[in-house]
């Protein structure tokens, strides 16, 4: 596989220690396979692979026959066929193998494309409420890696197993034809190396993975603690003691790995023993057959040497068994997520969107994220007449994100009502509601694409002039002037990196293009320093003038710019006077 690019997308890191591994259920692996819908190409690839290995066996068999027969000094003509066969097999093997790899990789990539599209279709109704909260980034990266595991399932598990079965059958057939008793020896050897050794490898991997997971989680917690507390620990001279403690956790991990090494070694020894014992047994049985005249000395050479080539097809199986435990977990995690009930139920016969203006009214709204979870909103009342600017504050965990989710209809309310221009929003198609209510999220995604495409997402018909106007209103005019390729500048992954503030402003420009009468600003200042934060909020509110604005934040910056402030506490909104919010600004940090 020298320097063969692995068709896994960049960024899908295999290691995530934070999410506990889902329990593997065999049914999930079948479902993953069904999602993938294997194509006939994969079968053709496996056939080519088996043919390649059988050509290798053929090369050994014909070469052995050729040499043994030549020793009997027959005429050259007797050997012609064997000479041609040896050369044919010598060329066929690499050619077939090359074909196999191309066919099977092509098939696996096709299967992956299909699996991705199907998984995506099932993700859409779950977004965003069921796609994780704080850890959404990790969860989704993990999900993409899990979908990719369908490739491993095809290329590194199913195909090697199919090839191993075909080649083993071919070899057994050949040897049985020559000498049935030698076929029995070969059969036992193949079972030992092809079934017992991989099963042992798989079981060992499962057992040590389970033990390692716990030790790893404990180590990870300690490391995160050390990193977060490094300043305090170093200042107090307590870091060496911490490092010593982590060293102990580390030793625990190493001890588990050392125990697992013995099991892995026994598996490898078993496979090696199976090959050797088969050759030994074949020689013993073969010699007896020669003595009793059942086979000639020439065929004995074939019977003894074929096993050496036959076992090659079993080499990838222990790896496949180990991989299978991983693929099972991936499948379980994937379907655990995909099987979630959507948080929003679109009405079967939605009411058409009412006419503007759009006053938004919340009355006695109760909401929770999942059934059985505690109520996050418990009787929220909020009036949003057109053009009103409202600030929502609250400690983290008070339910601000839940309120945003309800306003955008990412989450259905359990009781109470959200009404838009007099219509219960539950009766609207959620997408119709989002024509009226827009969002600038703190984690608004900048896609790996051009600035133009990123903006047009909000309004596919927008011309460049409109896009530029939106950028200017989001106060990105200066930034835009410095861009090398203007609207064609590549953003996001692999593109120019935006600062936190620039990201929010691009997101704002996008929201302005969508031109929704109601705009929700969710933690727009998260991660920004005080002055930048206030300037940003001022610009956001300025750009959104004329719209209803809900500013949701846990920070004080910009709250002096809204008309009323509510605090979210104990699941309800409580009005806050501006005086209570005043003060506490950094010395010199206020510019008015």
């Amino acid at each position, binding site marked *: 596989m020298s320097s063969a690019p692995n068709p896994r997308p960049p960024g899908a890191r295999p290691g995530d220690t934070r999410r506990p591994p889902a329990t593997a259920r065999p049914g999930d692996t079948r479902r993953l396979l069904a999602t993938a819908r294997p194509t006939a190409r994969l079968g053709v690839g496996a056939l080519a692979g088996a043919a390649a290995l059988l050509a290798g066996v053929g090369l050994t068999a014909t070469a052995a026959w050729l040499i043994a027969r030549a020793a009997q000094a027959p005429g050259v003509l007797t050997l012609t066929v064997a000479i041609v066969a040896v050369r044919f097999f010598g*060329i066929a093997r690499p050619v077939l193998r090359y074909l196999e790899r191309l066919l099977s990789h092509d098939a696996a990539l096709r299967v992956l494309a299909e699996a991705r*599209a199907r998984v995506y279709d099932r993700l859409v109704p779950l977004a965003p409420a069921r796609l994780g909260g704080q850890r959404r980034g990790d969860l989704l990266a993990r999900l993409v890696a899990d979908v990719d595991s369908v490739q491993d399932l095809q290329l590194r598990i199913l195909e090697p197993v199919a090839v191993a079965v075909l080649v083993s059958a071919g070899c057994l057939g050949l040897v049985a034809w020559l000498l049935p008793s030698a076929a029995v020896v070969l059969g036992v050897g193949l079972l030992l190396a092809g079934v017992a050794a991989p099963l042992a490898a798989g079981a060992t991997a499962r057992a040590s993975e389970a033990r390692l997971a716990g030790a790893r989680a404990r180590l990870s917690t300690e490391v995160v603690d050390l990193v977060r507390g490094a300043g305090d620990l170093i200042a107090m001279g307590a870091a060496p003691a911490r490092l010593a403690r982590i060293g102990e956790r580390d030793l625990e991990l190493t001890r588990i790995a050392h125990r697992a090494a013995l099991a892995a070694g026994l598996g490898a020894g078993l496979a090696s023993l199976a090959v050797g014992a088969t050759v030994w047994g074949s020689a013993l049985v073969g010699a007896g057959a020669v003595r009793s005249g059942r086979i000639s*000395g020439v065929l004995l050479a074939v019977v003894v040497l074929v096993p050496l080539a036959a076992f090659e097809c079993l080499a990838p199986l222990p790896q496949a068994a180990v991989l299978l435990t991983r693929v099972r977990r991936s499948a379980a995690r994937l379907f655990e997520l995909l099987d979630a009930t959507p948080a929003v139920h679109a009405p079967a016969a939605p009411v058409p969107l009412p006419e503007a203006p759009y006053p938004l009214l919340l009355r006695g709204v109760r909401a929770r994220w999942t059934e059985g979870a505690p109520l996050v909103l418990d009787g929220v009342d909020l009036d949003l007449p057109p053009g009103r600017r409202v600030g929502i504050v609250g400690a983290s965990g008070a339910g601000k994100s839940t309120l945003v989710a309800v306003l955008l209809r990412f989450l259905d309310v359990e009781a109470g009502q959200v009404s838009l221009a007099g219509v219960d929003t539950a009766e609207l198609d959620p997408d119709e509601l989002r024509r009226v209510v827009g969002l600038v999220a703190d984690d608004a995604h900048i896609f790996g694409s051009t600035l133009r495409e990123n903006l047009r997402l909000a309004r596919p018909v927008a011309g460049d002039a409109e896009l530029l106007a939106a950028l200017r209103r989001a106060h990105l005019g200066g930034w835009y002037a410095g861009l090398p390729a203007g609207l064609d500048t590549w953003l996001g992954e692999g593109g120019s990196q935006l600062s936190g503030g620039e990201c929010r402003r691009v997101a704002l420009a996008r929201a302005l293009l969508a031109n929704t009468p109601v705009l929700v600003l969710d933690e727009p200042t998260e991660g920004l320093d005080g002055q930048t934060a206030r300037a940003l909020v001022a610009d956001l509110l300025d750009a959104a003038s004329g719209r209803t604005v809900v500013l949701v934040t846990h920070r004080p910056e910009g709250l002096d710019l809204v008309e009323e402030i509510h605090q979210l506490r104990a699941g309800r909104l409580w009005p806050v006077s501006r005086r209570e919010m005043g003060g506490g600004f950094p010395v010199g940090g206020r510019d008015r």
Partner: protein
Amino acid sequence: MSRAEPRGRASPVDPRLLRYAAGARRHLLVAAGIGVATTLLVLVQAFAVTELVVRPFAGQTGSAALRGPLLLLAVVVACRAGLAVAGEVAAHRAAATVKSELRRGLLAHVVALGPSWLGRQRAGELATLVTRGTDALDGYFARYLPALVTAALVPAAVVAVVSTQNPLSGLIVAATLPLVPVFAVLVGMATRARTARQWHTLAALGGHFLDVVEGLPTLVVFRRAKAQAATIREVSDSHRRATMSTLRLAFLSSAVLELVATLSVALVAVSIGLRLLGGGLDLRTGLVVLVLTPEAYWPLRQVGAHFHDSVEGLAAAREVFAVLDTPLSPGGARPARPAPDLRRTTIRLQGVQVRYDRAKAALGPVEASIAPGELVGLVGPSGSGKSTLLAVLLGFLAPTAGRVVLETPDGPVDLAEVDPDDWRAQIAWVPQQPWLAPASLAENLRLARAQASDDELVEALTQAGAGPLLARLPDGLGTVLGERGAGLSAGERQRVALARAFLRRAPLVLLDEASAHLDEGTESVVAAAVRGLAGRHTVVVVAHRPALLQGVDRLVVLSAADPAAARTGAVRGERAEPAPGGGPDRGAAA
């Protein structure tokens, strides 16, 4: 395909792996020993198998004739199985040991690099690097290195033995073997050139799905979510075509490798067959050569097959090395001078400036002095570098320009020459967002002074205004604080940190007032605590609100550190203010 751009051919063994991990050095020796033994067994096995065919062929089918070779083969098989076990165990253990060495080395280095470096890293990523990031080394040690060692030994041994049996066959093998690496390198170079050309296309297409999935919430907001499945199919298909065009070339490398191997075997078989026919060779020699020839190519094919393990393993190790190679300080060596007694030392900041990058200074330049026993207030707008200045005083950050001079009774000493641990032993620091370990309150407090008694802990808590907090906690000092000290409010956390500062009994106290909202109660508690400390210690307090500035001996005002200020070279001076509450012995010695 990793996130990084493709780079040039890497050496199969990274010298840093041997430098940073003693386990890797040991394992190379063990692997070499196992490799030598395996090579011998491969040769002996070929002769034993040959005898088992040749003797019956010659009519010697009696058990007496076969007993010798059968016994020999049995011994070889048992030994090879034993070596397989030993090799696998050694490789896995070496991987585990090396990973452990790298992990511990990494963490020790990270701590040595200090909080200012750590502040620029993500805790989660570092934890992943430590716990799983080195796992790719498993394949490197368990599969690639053994294959590499075998490839270095077996082909040469086979050529030597085959040459003694039949020089022509030895020549064929010796001539074709070098073709394998030559073609591998040629195809590899062509593939890399092509991959490099297509890199951005491949990366963009390959990352598309992740990008769309991560952006799904945004797509939902703009009602564009449902339209994407078709795009995903389309882009995945383009990605498949681009990948396959690269793979067609990349797979050629191993195809050529196999072609050389199988064609050589065929060539050797046919030439031996013809020689046998001519009577120039006996069957025994012919069979030994036939059995041994594939063994010469097999290890090279294994190296090719496990090349990916090497690439991934070394890439993982390089991530660790990238951290390990970060120099600790510009000078390199750790300063070892004992710290002067801070109770009799004036700290003088001379043109101290810190910049993380060229464009913008994070601090200064600052001129100031802090005399023993003074209460110094540090004020300035957000971003002017107040916390950065404290980091400099703590020795977390070295000034990029200027210096911190310690004026001791025995003459001036540069802080850069002082052992940082010894220096920090005399400092108590209350950061803006104090870190609390997920452990009991007592354990958290004893981080400041391990041998403190329970009574002392309670006293420190009382001094820090945390008496009511202690009374409220269900298990008192034994109450376990949640992750990141959850369950305590920001004010309460600050009080626990203050208690730590009291416990520490350090001559210099650095207090970074939280700029976030502290309730009125905490604000006055902090102010009172500062005044309590000020009598007996030197106190530098970063203050956002006037309450804390009452009674300071000295006020250091920082202005926004911006490029303009740095350009004009304006001296950000200190402004000694009359000390309303200061005693006659704590005069402003500016």
